[in-house]
């Protein structure tokens, strides 16, 4: 049967070991993790500065925060067998809203942050309505949202960056670049915290359970008396909060809301999720995996830059490594499933 199952198609009748989800997820992560370590070793040998705290935390981790945060939210959507292409430009839109709240309206920055995150939830909610109520394919619904958000970000900012006033909202910038813990940018801290929260929600709450159920078999879930429409909307809205947070983080880092940023971030985030072993067919995936996936991408980018590989080659290599790391994971799956 291994000739017939694709990496994506895991819901079919193929024989596989009887592992519990957790054990299986565990293995999945183990392998992704092994891949990560491997890559890191290579780079450590290639560049002396790679394996330094400053580079790993200050550069590599820091640079993955935005993509990583987007990836966290998208993990939920993808586990429901959905997809969200709107996170990139949606992030820009939320950044712009943060700018409007804090600078244009002059609200206290803490409030602005909360509102911007909630605005992300609103964007997600609309996605959810389009998918769950209007029954549009997630790919299309969120593709449309991607375009709309792109335009709205420009409209709501008059196509110019909204600068955050350092006097009144210095604390806002601290969100990203400040260091509550010495030598650890707050952005990294925030990312760790939300990653933990995401993990708890996915594994320990009813929202998480239904996320898996929806992705595993939506019809059966509905017949079982779960209000799939409502819960699906909830999942997209929840994922939207992460888009909002990503918008806040990038605005805090740049000290301004850049309306034109974000296009293309969605693919990186989705790549991170899938590299982390989450199935695009839904029903399986994990937060730990996503974090590792995001790290793999970040490490590659950072490492190649340190080795000052010509840029055009960096993309080629990134592509190759993605193939390699996912391939290993697939081999593992097949090893586990071939009987």
């Amino acid at each position, binding site marked *: 049967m291994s000739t017939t199952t694709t990496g994506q198609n895991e819901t079919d009748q193929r024989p596989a070991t*009887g592992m519990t989800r957790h054990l299986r997820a565990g293995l999945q992560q183990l392998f992704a993790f092994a891949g990560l370590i491997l890559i890191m070793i290579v780079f450590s040998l290639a560049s002396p500065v790679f394996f330094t705290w400053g580079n790993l935390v200050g550069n590599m981790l820091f640079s993955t925060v935005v993509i990583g945060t987007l990836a966290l939210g998208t993990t939920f959507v993808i586990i429901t067998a959905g997809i969200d292409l709107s996170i990139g430009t949606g992030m820009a839109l939320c950044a712009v809203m943060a700018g409007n709240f804090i600078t244009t309206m002059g609200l206290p920055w803490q409030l602005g942050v909360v509102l911007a995150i909630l605005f992300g939830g609103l964007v997600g909610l609309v996605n959810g309505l389009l998918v769950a109520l209007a029954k549009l394919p997630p790919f299309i619904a969120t593709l449309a949202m991607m375009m709309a958000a792109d335009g709205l970000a420009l409209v709501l900012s008059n196509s110019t960056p909204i600068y955050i006033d350092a006097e009144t909202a210095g604390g806002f910038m601290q969100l990203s670049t400040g260091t509550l813990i010495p030598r650890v940018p707050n952005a990294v801290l925030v990312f760790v915290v939300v990653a933990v929260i995401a993990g708890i929600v996915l594994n320990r709450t009813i929202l998480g359970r239904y996320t898996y159920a929806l992705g595993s078999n939506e019809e059966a879930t509905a017949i079982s008396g779960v209000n799939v429409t409502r819960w699906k909307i909830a999942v997209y809205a929840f994922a939207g909060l992460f888009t909002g947070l990503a918008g806040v983080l990038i605005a805090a880092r740049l000290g301004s809301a850049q309306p034109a940023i974000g296009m293309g971030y969605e693919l990186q985030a989705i790549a991170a999720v899938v590299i982390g072993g989450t199935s695009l067919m839904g029903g399986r995936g994990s937060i730990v995996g996503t974090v590792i996936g995001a790290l793999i991408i970040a490490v590659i980018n950072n490492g190649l830059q340190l080795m000052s590989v010509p840029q055009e080659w960096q993309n080629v290599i990134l592509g190759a490594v993605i193939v390699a790391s996912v391939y290993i994971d697939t081999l593992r799956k097949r090893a586990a499933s071939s009987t």
Partner: protein
Amino acid sequence: MTPLLSLEGVSKGFPGVQALADMHLQVYPGEVLALVGENGAGKSTLMKLLSGIYTPDSGTFELDGQPYRPTGPKHAEELGIGIIHQEFHLMPDLTVAQNIFIGREPRRAGIFTDDRALNQQTAELLDRLGLDLDPRSIVGTLTVAKQQMVEIAKALSDESTKVLIMDEPTAALNNAEVATLHQLIRRFITPHTAVIYISHRMDELRAISDRITVIRDGRYIDTVTTAQTTMAEVISRMVGREIDTSVGPQNVREGREPVLSVTGLSTKHLLRDVSFELRKGEILGFAGLMGAGRTEVARAIVGADPITSGTIAVHGRQVRIPHPARANEHGIGYLSEDRKRYGLLLNLSVADNIALSSLREKFTSAGFVRSTGIAEEAREKVRSLGIRTPSTGQVVNHLSGGNQQKVVIAKWLTKDCDILIFDEPTRGIDVGAKDEIYTLLNQLAAAGKSIIMISSELPEVLRMAHRVVVMSEGRVSGVLDQDRATQENIMELATLRPDSEPSVISEAGPQ
């Protein structure tokens, strides 16, 4: 006489499960060999070994005296072994003809498909087999029964087949269709061919098989000649104990108060003015031919399909049920006849499935799920229903058909609704398990739950139902009290044209 196909010392294990251990089996030319065993006994696994989908851990096959080692289904087919699998292997978006001849379709100039020839050949095949199917209709739009027909036609389309293996081919068929199938089988049998026939329906085995091989827990138990044994013997060999099949409905009585009253229910497609009453603590049987609309009624009641007119009252209070979640709130649960599609989260664990319906009210506090509670509940149900699984963490996908069905039932028992609609609850379930499920239904009824049991197996209806609603072509053609519920009466009502009057018991029309 040398066997056409023989197996020696075949073993097959899956992580946590020894599906087959030292199996042996002989199939002689010109015979129909029935293979029976409880759910999870290893029947399907054995067939998958024969078709080269799995490779055995040990053991040898011989076909026509030659060593037989299939590398895959295609290879098996070439060597003359055709299979109808327990779960469908159809392409729902392709037409009947395209499905039947997939991989062997007539071509023009090597690369072009010749659909005229294709449909032509299919049409010929179909009426050679006497199957009423349009070669051009898309399989995904057909009913389960018709899809099963396509599977059968597909298997019989290859003239060179020596051994035809059928894994529960009748699970979705009504008696008429079963009869057709049996004719097909008889026509297929020649001095050089044989059929391995897997089924849980004892009456069928008697009708079609020459010999019966019984297996239990993956081991060979015995082989008997059908003509010289009673089904009771076979069953006791299967389950390793006697089963009393002569019991009837339990504690039937009048004057129970109604809990669910359906009046004038109609749907866009099929149902017309369906009215009936379900009473507290009773088991209400739903009989009818396949396609009569019983599942439709169930789906309409739980809000899975919208109704165009009619009212539903629960405990005398009229309710609106736009979707199954609402039905749940009113304490109505529905077990679909199509468990893979509407019943199970195949790639999740037994525990996850059992908890699904009651997650919110039973296993959640402040939004957080209590995994331990779920695990306990799951273990409890696995024990009480005797679900064969290495652990409650096992992925449901890997359970045998019957055990999967039990998981679905466990889910609804956990939910404990007071109105339960079982649609073909024993479809694909072995006699032993059936017995357990019957006992279970009776216990539930005794405990005051009200049960609708949709079933295509009359004996089952007669054995369980306090009253029987008979449907025909989307209408209720009659409601029979227990004393009037006989094979004959039900059959007449089931085949009744909506316009004509029921000659029997006319007073027993819908009340």
